[in-house]
């Protein structure tokens, strides 16, 4: 094959991969706008499933629970994670170990982390509920915030802060006036990331939630297991729309290549 043929074959491959990734999501979104509840074709446009959503108190409550937990997670994880990233950047003793400790929360299957949290929270008396969910979400989000902010910190010229200090700024002033403004995009990206991690999290929430006050993914899961309804298509399309929009925002703030 010639070079051009190879390149075109490669592009076709990538196009097929993207088709594979987006086709189900696109079909789901399309079906959420189809009037027929049984996925009947031909397609007949209708907002009726979204209108039904407006009347579904249970899903609305779940949505609010998801949003406030995600927002609180974002705030806490960003504060804790940014502080840790800044400290790690100073190269403290044991830095390698501390960095390695960030990976178990990401890498251990959530099933195991989630059930372990369930067991532990029960034994120490926290039990299940949104408080437990929040503790779990923050723990999962911290490593991501540290990674995003650290990537930004690595791009910071250490001479900048040193210059500020040689000009008489205290460590704190130098940090506030030089480092922090430089870090801002990374911190904002980290916060959005943490929000997305929590908003999309299913497994941990599933194990830690008390019945009756669920987050959106858990509610959707329960509905799916009960049976398929186009209403679930509608809320799922909204959820995926929100999380993709969030991540596009993150991508504007950090280049994904920096996340190495």
């Amino acid at each position, binding site marked *: 094959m010639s070079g051009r043929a190879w390149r075109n074959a*490669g592009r076709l491959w990538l196009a097929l*991969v993207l088709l594979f990734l987006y086709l189900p999501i696109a079909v*789901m979104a399309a079906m959420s706008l189809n009037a027929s509840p049984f996925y009947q074709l031909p397609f007949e446009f209708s907002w009726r499933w979204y209108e039904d959503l407006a009347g579904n108190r249970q899903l609305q409550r779940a949505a609010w629970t998801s949003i406030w937990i995600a927002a609180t997670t974002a705030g806490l994880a960003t504060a804790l994670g940014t502080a840790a990233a800044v400290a790690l950047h100073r190269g403290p003793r044991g830095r390698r170990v501390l960095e390695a400790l960030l990976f178990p929360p990401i890498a*251990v299957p959530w099933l195991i982390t989630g059930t372990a949290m369930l067991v532990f*929270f029960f034994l120490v008396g926290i039990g299940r509920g949104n408080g437990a969910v929040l503790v779990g979400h923050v723990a999962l989000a911290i*490593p991501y915030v540290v990674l995003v902010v650290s990537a930004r910190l690595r791009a910071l010229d250490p001479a900048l802060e040193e210059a500020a200090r040689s000009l008489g700024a205290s460590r704190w002033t130098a940090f506030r006036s030089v480092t922090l403004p430089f870090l801002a995009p990374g911190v904002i990206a980290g916060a959005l990331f943490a929000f997305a991690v929590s908003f999309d999290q299913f497994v941990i929430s599933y194990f830690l939630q008390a019945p009756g006050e669920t987050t959106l993914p858990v509610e959707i899961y329960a509905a799916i297991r009960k049976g398929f309804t186009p209403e679930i298509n509608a809320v799922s399309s909204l959820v995926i729309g929100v999380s*993709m929009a969030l991540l596009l925002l993150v991508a504007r703030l950090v280049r994904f290549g920096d996340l190495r």
Partner: protein
Amino acid sequence: MRPPPSLRAREARGTAALLAPAYLWLTAAVFLPLGVMLGVSFLTETPFGGREWAVTLGQYEAALGKPLYRELLRRSLLLAGEVTLWCVVIGWPAAFVLAKVIGPRRRGALFLLTILPFWSNGLVRVFSWAILLRGDGVIDRAVEGLTPLEVEGGLLFTREAVVIGLVHAYLPYVVLTGYLSISAIGDDLLEAARSLGASRRLTFLRVVAPLSLPGVAAGAALIFVPVAGAFMEPRILGGREGTFLGTVIEDQFTAVFNWPFGAALSFVLLAAVLAVLAVSAPAVRAAR
């Protein structure tokens, strides 16, 4: 010049104060629970509600000794292996195309498009496959609408459906890590290979593949571990065919309420997964 000890000590205290909240949180929410669960796995009974319990190895004996659980473990590891393989086969070339074939202007956008689903809601994406694959679902209807064929049954509630859904869920991992490691291979290396007369096949096999293998292997490990413990995807897409170790572990905590056994199964799974990774690591190194 070293700062005087007092100054150094003060800075060290400041650093520790910045580190402490995050790591204490991780300890309380991840490391302690994992430790406690390890302890629970050696108990006879769920230590809750005033039940009598004693220390035992019985849970592990049951988890490792009963053929049913050995079979489930085998199924889970096979599923993880199969999903990982598909992700590598599909994702590695895609990563190469992204890194080296697509022009720099469209590369960023396409890369983002490829990894975007990965960070969007996993549950919802699995659900979207259920819509597509169910009997009388969209695929069936489309095939019937476009061809004279009668389709029945659909793919939903088969092992294939579980594999498809998991590949969809984890494919972006390989694309991400593969893309990062292939981008790090300079164009000059590829040009050098061609100027020395190497075909594209030889260049890929002898230069691109060995140099990007560590990245792809990292991506594969990141897929293998969670897939071995998957329970939500098999439940939604697998139906009765979707019984794996992950779903059985879930049952121990949510239905059967046998925490010690669930914990033992979890650690058996974790150990098996780590063992597979440990065995394959030297192979990866040797292949370079």
